[in-house]
C-alpha cells in the first residue's frame, strides 16, 4: 500500500522527550497504570481488592458481615468469603465494581434486578440472600459453594450422555422457572453452574440477570455475555430482542460442551468465536466427535437425537430454536424416556428398534404385515411357511433383545424370500420390485437414510438368496418411485438455462412416469416454450409432441401434434405421436398409417435425444431423496451416472399399440379401408430397415411385416432382424448395468453417436462376439424368435 516515509513515526508513541518514562514499560503494565490513573480509585469499590487489609479487624467489618478471604475478582465485582454475624453463617459476598459502579443508572438497575433475583427460590438456582449497600458499596450475598463448577467437571471427566441429559433437565427446569418470573439469565455457561456439597447443580450469577419487559424481552444493547456461549443476537443486536430463546441457545451450548467437551463456537479468541456464532458455522457434535475419534480417549458415539436437540437450540435464528425452555425440557425428557424427539424425525430403523424395545408385539405385527404384503404378490405355500418360520425366528430373537440391525435383516430377509427369481419371472419380479419400493416409500418416506438402510439389508438378503440379478429391476423402481425430486430438480434447472437443447432435455426428463403420473406445471411450461420458440425445429417439435403423446394422462394440446405433422409430414414416426387420451378411431389410425407409409424418412430420433440427455445430465448433483436409497444398490460413485443412465434409458418412444392392432390382417379396418394393408406393409418394412430406427421400432416393423408376408422373402428378412436382435440381446446386457456401469455408459454413448443397432453391434464385438449371429445359431430360449401375439408391443427388451 504505502511506503513508509516517516520511519520514526512508526513507533513514536510520545511527542516530547522531556522526562520520558522507562521505555521498557510493557503494554500490560501501562494498562494497569492507565487503570490506576483513570479508574476512579478514590471510590471505595476499586480499593476493595487491594486496599482492604484482612488482618485488620476494622477493615474486615462490613455491616453485618465480616470479610474473611478474597475468592475471586472479575470486571463486575470482587467476591469475598464472609461471615454473616446475625445469622452466624458463611456466605459469598460480591461487591459491584468496574464500569458499573460509577454509573448511577446501571447501579439502580443492578439493584432492582438483583432484588428480583433474590425472589428466585429453586433447588437448582444459587439463591441470592441479600442485596444491599453499606457505606456506598453495592453488594449481594449468596451461599458459599465449595464444589466444582461444571466447567471444571467437564474438564476433569466428561459426564456420560445419560448424566448430561439429567443435568440439562435440572438446569432447564431452573431456567424455565426463572423465565416464568420474568428473569433472563443471559450468561449461562458451565462456569456459572456450581455443584453444592450434595453434588446438586446450581445456576449462579442470577444476580446479574435481566428482567424482561412487558413484551417478554430485553434490548440487547446493554448486555454482554461470554463469547463461547453467547447467542448470535447477543453478539450482533439486530432485529431480535433478547428473550427466552437467548437462554435456550446458551443451554444448547452447555449441552454441546457436555457432548463434545468443547464449546460450540470453536477454538480461537473471542472474536473468532463470535464470528463463528453469528455465521451459524457450528460443527455438529457427531462430526466433532468423529474428528476426535482419532484420539484414544474418544467418547462413546453421540446419540443422533441429542445432537438434534443440541443443534436446534443453537440455531442462528431464534425462531428456529425451541420456542421456550419448556419445549427444550420436554424434548430432553422424551429422549430420556426413549421416545421420539421433536427436533428430529427418527430414522425408520430406529423407530423399529425403539418400538421393539418398548412394544415387541407391535413391532412383530408390523413385520407380519410386511410379510403379508409381500407374500400377497406371489403367494405360494412354501413362502408362507418360510415367512412363518422367519416370524418365529424373529420372535425368538426378540427375546434376546434383538438389536435393530438383526431386525432389519429379518425384515429384509422376508422381503427377499418373497422376491421372485429367475429369467421367466421377469414381470412378476418387476411387480415385486415395484411393491417393495412402494412399501419402502410409504414407510420410510422423507427419510432417505432409512431407505438406504432398508435397501442395503434387502440387497444383502437378495444376494444370500441367490437373487442378485434383481438389482437392476430394483434400481429402475427406485428411480421411478423415489426419483421424482431428482427429475423435477433437473427440469427446473434445465428450464432455467433456457437454450434449445436444455429445454429439449427438460421436456424429455419431465415426461411423467407410472400409470397416474401428472405432468408438472414446470414441464408444461417447458413444452409450451419449445413450441412457441422453435416452431421450425423438427427435433424440438418432435419432443413436444412426444411428451404429449407418451404421458399417461390425457394431453390437451392437440396443437403440438398438428404442427409437427403439418410442418414435417415426411417422417413416418411423426404421424404416430397423437396426443395421449385423444382416442382416435380405427379410421383415424388407418389414416395415420397411410400418411406414415408415404413419408420418406423413418426416424424415432433416439440417437439425438440420447445425446442431448447425456449432455444435459452430466455431473449433476443428486438429491439425498434418491441418492441415499440408490447407494444401497449401486456404488456411491455410480449413483449420479446410473441416474443419468436410467433417465436416458427410459427416454420415451412412440407407442405402437394402436398401429399394431389396426394393422393386424384380421382387423376390421384392414377389411374396410382401401390401401391400408399395403400401407401397413410399407410402414413396417420402412421401420424394420431404417438406419434411424431404434431396435424397438425395428421389432415393431418385424411384427408388421411377418404378419402380412408370411412365407415370403420379406418374412425371412424380418426373421433375420429378429435373430440379430436376440443375438445382440444375449451378448449385450445393459440390464446388468449395476455390475458393469462402464459398459452401460459406453453403450449409451454409442447410441447417441451411431444409433442403437450399431451401438449394440459394437458392444457385442467388445464382448468378443460377432455383430450378427452365425448361421445355425439357436438362442438359449428358441421361443424368443417366435412371434408372440400375446406379447405387448413394448415387451421386447432392448
Amino acid at each position, binding site marked *: *500500500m*504505502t511506503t*513508509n*516515509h*516517516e520511519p520514526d*513515526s*512508526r513507533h*513514536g*508513541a*510520545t*511527542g*516530547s522527550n*522531556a*522526562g*520520558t*518514562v*522507562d521505555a521498557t514499560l510493557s*503494554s500490560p*503494565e*501501562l*494498562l*494497569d*497504570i*492507565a*487503570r*490506576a*490513573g*483513570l*479508574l*476512579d*480509585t478514590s471510590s471505595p469499590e476499586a480499593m476493595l481488592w*487491594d*486496599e482492604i487489609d484482612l488482618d485488620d479487624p476494622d477493615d474486615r467489618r462490613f455491616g453485618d458481615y465480616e470479610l474473611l478471604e478474597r475468592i475471586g475478582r*472479575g*470486571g*463486575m465485582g470482587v467476591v469475598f468469603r464472609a461471615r454473616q454475624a446475625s445469622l452466624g453463617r458463611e456466605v459469598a459476598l460480591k461487591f459491584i*465494581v*468496574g*464500569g*458499573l*459502579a*460509577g*454509573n448511577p443508572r446501571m447501579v439502580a438497575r443492578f439493584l432492582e434486578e438483583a432484588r428480583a433475583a433474590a425472589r428466585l427460590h429453586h433447588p437448582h438456582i444459587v439463591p441470592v440472600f441479600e442485596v444491599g449497600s453499606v457505606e456506598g458499596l453495592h453488594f449481594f450475598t449468596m451461599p458459599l459453594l465449595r464444589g466444582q463448577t461444571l466447567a471444571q467437571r467437564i474438564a476433569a471427566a466428561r459426564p456420560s450422555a445419560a448424566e448430561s441429559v439429567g443435568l440439562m433437565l435440572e438446569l432447564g427446569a431452573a431456567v424455565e422457572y426463572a423465565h416464568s418470573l420474568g428473569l433472563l439469565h443471559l*450468561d449461562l455457561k458451565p462456569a456459572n453452574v456450581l455443584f453444592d456439597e450434595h453434588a446438586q447443580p446450581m445456576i449462579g450469577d442470577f444476580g*446479574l440477570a435481566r428482567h424482561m419487559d412487558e413484551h417478554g424481552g430485553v434490548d440487547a444493547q446493554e448486555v*454482554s*455475555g*461470554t*463469547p463461547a456461549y453467547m447467542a448470535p443476537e447477543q453478539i450482533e443486536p439486530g432485529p431480535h430482542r433478547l428473550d427466552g430463546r437467548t437462554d435456550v441457545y446458551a443451554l444448547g451450548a452447555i449441552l454441546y460442551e457436555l457432548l463434545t467437551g468443547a464449546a460450540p463456537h470453536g477454538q*480461537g*479468541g*473471542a*472474536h*473468532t*468465536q*463470535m*464470528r463463528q456464532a453469528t455465521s451459524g458455522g457450528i460443527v455438529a457434535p457427531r462430526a466433532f466427535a468423529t474428528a476426535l475419534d482419532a484420539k484414544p480417549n474418544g467418547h462413546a458415539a453421540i446419540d443422533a437425537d441429542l445432537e438434534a436437540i443440541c443443534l436446534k437450540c443453537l440455531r442462528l435464528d431464534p425462531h428456529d430454536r425451541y420456542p421456550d425452555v419448556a419445549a427444550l425440557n420436554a424434548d430432553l425428557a422424551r429422549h430420556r424416556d426413549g421416545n421420539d424427539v421433536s427436533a428430529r424425525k427418527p430414522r425408520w430403523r430406529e423407530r423399529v428398534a425403539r418400538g421393539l424395545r418398548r412394544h415387541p408385539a407391535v413391532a412383530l405385527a408390523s413385520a407380519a404385515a410386511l410379510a403379508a404384503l409381500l407374500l400377497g404378490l406371489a403367494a405360494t405355500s412354501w413362502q408362507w411357511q418360510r415367512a412363518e418360520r422367519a416370524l418365529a425366528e424373529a420372535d425368538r430373537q426378540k427375546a434376546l433383545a434383538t438389536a435393530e440391525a438383526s431386525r432389519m435383516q429379518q425384515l429384509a430377509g422376508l422381503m427377499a424370500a418373497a422376491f421372485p427369481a429367475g429369467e421367466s419371472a421377469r414381470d412378476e419380479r418387476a411387480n415385486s420390485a415395484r411393491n417393495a419400493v412402494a412399501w419402502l416409500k410409504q414407510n420410510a418416506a422423507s427419510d432417505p437414510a432409512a431407505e438406504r438402510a432398508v435397501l442395503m439389508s434387502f440387497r444383502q438378503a437378495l444376494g444370500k438368496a441367490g437373487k442378485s440379478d434383481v438389482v437392476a429391476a430394483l434400481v429402475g423402481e427406485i428411480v421411478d418411485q423415489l426419483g421424482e425430486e431428482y427429475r423435477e430438480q433437473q427440469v427446473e434447472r434445465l428450464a432455467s438455462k433456457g437454450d434449445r437443447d436444455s429445454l429439449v432435455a427438460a421436456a424429455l426428463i419431465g415426461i411423467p412416469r407410472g400409470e397416474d403420473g401428472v405432468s408438472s406445471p414446470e414441464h408444461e411450461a417447458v413444452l409450451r416454450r419449445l413450441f412457441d420458440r422453435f416452431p421450425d425445429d423438427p427435433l424440438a417439435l418432435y419432443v413436444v409432441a412426444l411428451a404429449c403423446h407418451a404421458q399417461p394422462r390425457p394431453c390437451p394440446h392437440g396443437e403440438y401434434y398438428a404442427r409437427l405433422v403439418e410442418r414435417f409430414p415426411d417422417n413416418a414416426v411423426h404421424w404416430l405421436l397423437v396426443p395421449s387420451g385423444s382416442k382416435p378411431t380405427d379410421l383415424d389410425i388407418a389414416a395415420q398409417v397411410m400418411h406414415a407409409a408415404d413419408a420418406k424418412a423413418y426416424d424415432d430420433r433416439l440417437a439425438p435425444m440420447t445425446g442431448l440427455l447425456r449432455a444435459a445430465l452430466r455431473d449433476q448433483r443428486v438429491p439425498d431423496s434418491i441418492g441415499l436409497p440408490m447407494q444401497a444398490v449401486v456404488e456411491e460413485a455410480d449413483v449420479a451416472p446410473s441416474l443419468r443412465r436410467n433417465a436416458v434409458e427410459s427416454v420415451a418412444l412412440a407407442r405402437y399399440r394402436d398401429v399394431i392392432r389396426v394393422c393386424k390382417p384380421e382387423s376390421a379396418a384392414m377389411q374396410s379401408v382401401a390401401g391400408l394393408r399395403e400401407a401397413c406393409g410399407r410402414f413396417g418394412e420402412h421401420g424394420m430397415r431404417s438406419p434411424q430406427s431404434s431396435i424397438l421400432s425395428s421389432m415393431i416393423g418385424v411384427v408388421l411385416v411377418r404378419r402380412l408376408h408370411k412365407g415370403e422373402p420379406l418374412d425371412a428378412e424380418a426373421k433375420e432382424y429378429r435373430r440379430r436382435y436376440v443375438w445382440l440381446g444375449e451378448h449385450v446386457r445393459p440390464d446388468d448395468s449395476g455390475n458393469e456401469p462402464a459398459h452401460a455408459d459406453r453403450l449409451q454413448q454409442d447410441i447417441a453417436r451411431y444409433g442403437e443397432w450399431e451401438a449394440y453391434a459394437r458392444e457385442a464385438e467388445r464382448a468378443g462376439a460377432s455383430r450378427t449371429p452365425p448361421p445355425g445359431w439357436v438362442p438359449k430360449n428358441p421361443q424368443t424368435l417366435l412371434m408372440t401375439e400375446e406379447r405387448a408391443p413394448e415387451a421386447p427388451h432392448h
Partner: protein
Amino acid sequence: MAVFPTTRWSLIQASDRHEGDVAAAWGALVRDYRPAIVGFFRRGALAREAEDLAQEFLLRSMRDGWWSRADPEIGSFRRFLLVLLKRFLAMQNDAGHRRFEVTGVDVDEGSDGQSPERLFDLEFAICLTRSALDELRGDYAGNGRGEMFDALQPWLSEAPAHGELAALGTRLAVPPNTLAVQLKRLRARFQKAVRAALADLSIDAEHAAADLDALRIVLGSEGVTR
C-alpha cells in the same frame, strides 16, 4: 464574550489560527496516538495491514487536512478520531473485500474478541497514560526528584508488597513512612495528570468527562467477559 479556547484540541478547531500551525498540531497529535489508530485497524478484515493502514490514515489526514472536518459538536479528539477511523475503514473494507477474494487473505484469526472501538480505547488510554507519565516525570526531574519518580513508579498501579517500601527506603535513605506518603502523592498527581491530558484533548470539561467514562468502561471490563 466566549471563552477563548485553550486546550490542545480546541486549538486545532480554532478558525483563526495559521493553517500550518494547525497542521503541525494535528500531525503531532495523531502521531502521539498512532498506537490507538493501529489498534483500531487490528480488529477487522484488514488486520494484517493495520500498520500500513494506520500509516496511510496519518498521511492522508495530513495531506487532506481532515482536522478541518471536525464538527464542534464532536467535542473531543478521541471521538473525532473514531469518526474518521470508521469512515476510513469503511472505505478500505470496500476495497479490501475485492482484494482478499483474490489473495485469499482471511480476516484476523488471532484476535481476542475486541471490537475496533474497544481496542482503540485501550490503546488510547495507554497513550494518554504514557503522555501523562512523561509529563509527570518531567516535573519530578525538573525538581531534581527524577530518581524518586523512577523508584515509586512501579507502584502506581499496585500496592508494594510487604517490606518493599522498607527496602527502598533503605536504598534511598528515606524513612518508609515518608516513602508511603510520597507514593500517595505520586498517585494523586498522576491521576490529575491523566485527567488533565484528557481535558487537553477535549473542548470542555463535559466532553472530557464523557471520554473518561468511555475509557473507564473499557478499562474496567478489560480481560473479563462480563
